[in-house]
């Protein structure tokens, strides 16, 4: 994996903190403004764990790109036919080691990348607390197995209720934690092959 990122101390600290949170919690919010390196933090952790022999696999969902019915699945009111949702399929596959998920994966993450809306997050309450079970309208119950983690990547929690916030661990990425310098450094590194140090002297 090559993210062209530099190992800044503060960035590494955030990655380590995420690892520590995921050790004790099965659900974690990564909060930070756009450009605060939220995605890079978990991607680096996933890559580092895979390189360290703890295979990590993840799936990313944007929960606001689909309706709540398409996320969790819904029952057709006329035909009584059950139609699976994005999240329920992924969770069931992870639970049963179907498809791309194999038993050798030490960590299986579901990344929910998108702003929190009570419409869908409240349905995850049972997953996020100690029950660790996703209950669907079809009365199916999908338990969260020990390798599975839920990571929610959001810019703010303004729409979340206290019931939701208290259920997950929180990693807050301040704007100043990573900042713009690493971006600049890795960008300039791409140009370093061609001799000029002018750009360096400008900043």
């Amino acid at each position, binding site marked *: 994996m090559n993210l062209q990122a530099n190992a800044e101390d503060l960035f590494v600290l955030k990655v380590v903190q995420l690892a*520590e949170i995921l050790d*004790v919690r099965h659900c974690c919010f990564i909060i930070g403004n756009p450009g605060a390196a939220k995605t890079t933090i978990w991607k680096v952790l996933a890559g580092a764990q895979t390189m360290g022999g703890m295979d990590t696999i993840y799936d990313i969902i944007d929960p606001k790109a689909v309706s709540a019915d398409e996320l969790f699945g819904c029952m057709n009111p006329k035909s009584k036919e059950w139609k699976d949702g994005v999240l329920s399929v992924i969770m069931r596959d992870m639970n049963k080691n179907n498809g791309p998920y194999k038993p050798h994966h030490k960590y299986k993450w579901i990344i929910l990348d998108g702003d929190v809306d*009570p419409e869908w997050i409240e349905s995850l309450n049972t997953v996020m607390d100690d029950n660790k079970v996703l209950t669907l*309208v079809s009365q199916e119950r999908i338990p969260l197995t020990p390798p599975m983690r839920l990571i929610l990547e959001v810019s703010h929690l303004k729409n979340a209720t206290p019931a939701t916030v208290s*259920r997950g661990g929180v990693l*807050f990425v301040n704007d100043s934690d990573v900042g713009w310098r690493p971006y600049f450094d890795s960008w300039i590194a791409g140009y370093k092959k061609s001799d000029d140090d002018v750009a360096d002297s400008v900043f």
Partner: protein
Amino acid sequence: MNYMSMAQIFMGLAQTGSWGCFDEFNRISIEVLSVVSTQVKYCLDAIRELKLNPAKNMFVFMDFDEIFLRITTGFFITMNPGYAGRTELPENLKALFRSCAMVVPDIVKICENMLMSEGFTCAKDLSKKFMCLYDLSKSLLSKQIHYDWGLRAVKSVLRQAGGLKRAEPDILEDIILKRGLKDFNWPKIVVEDRNIFDGLIRDLFPNIVIVP
């Protein structure tokens, strides 16, 4: 959740005589809730009749077939009123349930007992320090939506501290708790609050150096 799946649940509870607890009940939409209140009424009426006349253990639930009813059937609702995305319960449904307000529990006592069960010997002092830190944090740090100093947060820190304690039983308990508190809360503290939080921890656990 539609009214048909609620009907299934009610029929199941009535026939087995179990108690059912509906958690986060006010997340059900208002249209469904108004049907639910009639469903509850059906059951409660039948139970009342069964009390008077123990022979009458069958009842007609809505427009379904006649089903069996046990006297022990009961329904309970737990919910957080007034949150975003939640509905207000209709008055006729409220009238069918007795309401009972819960107050904030005495977290110090819970904390002390959990510390003790995790194997800490000076649980009393530590729980006082713990709650002192959380109370002060709640009032002194900036108001962030993602800060949570409630019971759930306390429980997770204690569980983590318990793990640390069992991993290294010979280390001073103050150090373990201090490390647990710091590890757990540090990631979510925003930049402006870092010095304050650091100061609070330093004041509550003086003369303790954390050896990583």
